[in-house]
């Protein structure tokens, strides 16, 4: 990095950075503080002399206890986890093979196919759910986890394919050619050389896919009706907002617990994830 004057660094780097961090992390802080606040403090108006909107005087785990005991939240968490993992796995496997084929194999219409897959990704879910609901009903998959495990890949596969295709293109062809001379078949070279080298890309595609399916709302809202079978985003909203009553404490506790797995996944793979997005393979 070029050497700069100290005050310049403070004004043009640290200060904007601090503002940005504050801005992005504040919702999480708000979520945490609300989840830990007893109802008495929560429903006090801001104009009251004793109001402390930004912190809590008597932190309590009451909302967490209620959430875990009176609602089906543990089920929702489990459903979301299972559905996200399975749909991510399906999409990654399909995306890896499709991405490899589009990046490496020359066949008639490969470019058209690539574009077509991308266009599928652009069709909004709010339109796609109507025909999908029809199919789900006909196949009698409604209200089962399969309804989501099989519909999430409709938007995850195009996404993974495109991300991985881009990554595979950055891997020098010679690696594969060398493996083929060394005695590997095309499939063998792909599995033994290209996929291991592409791990950063595969992981970042996986993380994205996992997050997308974890947060998915519309399909989960439409295809699952039993309270027990819902996912976290749908369950929290449909069961903890009754009419015009918002159970803010439990809502925030649910949101907080629901975002922990995603945060964990990100922090575990953050390094891979960054190289995956910037796509740098050094021989």
């Amino acid at each position, binding site marked *: 990095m070029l050497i700069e004057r100290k005050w310049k660094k403070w004004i043009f780097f640290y200060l904007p950075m601090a503002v940005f961090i504050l801005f992005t992390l504040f919702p999480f802080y708000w979520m945490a503080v609300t989840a830990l606040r007893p109802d008495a403090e929560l429903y006090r108006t801001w104009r009251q002399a004793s109001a402390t909107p930004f912190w809590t005087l008597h932190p309590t785990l009451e909302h967490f206890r209620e959430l875990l005991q009176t609602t089906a939240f543990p089920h929702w968490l489990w459903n979301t986890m299972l559905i996200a993992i399975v749909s991510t796995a399906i999409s990654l496997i399909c995306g890896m093979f499709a991405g490899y084929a589009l990046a490496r194999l020359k066949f008639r219409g490969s470019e058209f196919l690539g574009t077509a897959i991308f266009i599928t990704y652009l069709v909004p879910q709010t339109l796609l759910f109507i025909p999908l609901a029809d199919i789900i009903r006909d196949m009698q998959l409604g209200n089962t986890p399969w309804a989501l495990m099989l519909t999430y890949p409709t938007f995850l596969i195009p996404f993974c394919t495109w991300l991985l295709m881009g990554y595979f293109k950055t891997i020098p062809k010679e690696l594969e050619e*060398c493996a083929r001379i*060394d005695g590997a078949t095309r499939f063998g070279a792909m599995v033994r050389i290209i996929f291991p080298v592409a791990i950063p890309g595969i992981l970042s595609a996986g993380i994205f896919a996992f997050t997308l399916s974890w947060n998915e709302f519309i399909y989960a809202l439409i295809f699952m009706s039993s309270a027990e079978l819902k996912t976290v985003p749908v369950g929290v909203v449909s069961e903890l907002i009754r009419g015009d009553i918002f159970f803010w404490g439990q809502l925030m506790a649910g949101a907080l617990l629901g975002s922990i797995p995603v945060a964990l996944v990100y922090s575990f793979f953050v390094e891979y994830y960054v190289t995956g997005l910037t796509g740098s393979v*050094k*021989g």
Partner: protein
Amino acid sequence: MANVSIRNLNKKYDGGFHAVKDVNLEIRDKEFMVLVGPSGCGKTTTLRMVAGLEEITSGEILIGTRVINDLPPMDRDIAMVFQNYALYPHKSVHQNMAFGLQMRKYPKQEIERRVREAAEVLGIESLLERKPRQLSGGQRQRVAVGRAIVRHPQVFLFDEPLSNLDAMLRVQMRVELKRLHERLETTAIYVTHDQVEAMTLGDRVVVMKDGWVQQVGEPLELYGKPANRFVAGFIGSPAMNFVSVTISESLGELSASAEGLRLKMPPRLADRMRTHAGKRVTLGVRPEALHPATGADPADCCFDTTVDVVEPLGNEILVNFRLGGAPMVARVDPAVRVKAHQSVRFALDPERIHFFDEKNEAAI
């Protein structure tokens, strides 16, 4: 026996680009054959067709007596060293070198023995546990070569393996490759765009241009008897000087003349040149066949000129000037004192001149 025969080899790409045109080569067993030419001349494509990485449009390639046109790369019993080394970044040096043997299901002890042996030959024993990204350019190069030699293939293919190295290392690796080839006694095909590399490494050299083979021969043969103007200009550094001259005959004596020069035809060339009397041809003379004139030089070999630029390189001086409108370079002894813009009388060695046809550029 691992001689490689290439017969009427052609490569046409889908877009219609004809990259390799009717190439015929017989590469002998244990020979080090270098393909050299400017970029886009088809040398790498030819090599890749031998490797099986590129489909053959027409023609045949044989290794030994076996036609390998339709064999996949793995069944051709070749090893290739790539320009960017193509080391597997996720494998250690040892694993990189062992991969080809593992794929061929060699027993563990045999793999271990061969990897150690190759590492010892190349002096990379201490690097075996490292990953490619922890190696310098020269070390990577060695590993890439090591990975090729552990397999004991019938033919080595090298695709510009030294061009990513810095100048010093390149010279050093050149010598090592030569030594290695003498030791291993395996047929090798080596592609480069660097004529110095081609001359120093090759038992024989193939010069290519625009997909055609221009000439095949031993390095000194290419240097001394270039088949055409392209080969003459490509081999040798600085390149051969060319000047357009007119051949004329008077009183039975042939001479070549350009502005400022009237050269009597040496007897060895006289017969061949007689048919060109009255025509314009290209005179080729290497920089080392030019020297400041002394009294011993016959008058017809001398010409007066003005020095344009002087490049003192230490062991020699390159003097730039013009003759008959064409730029010329002379390579002279560093003891010679010449300055820019000075008038100098130069002489050329009549035994070391070449003539080329103006139209088809072939040597006369």
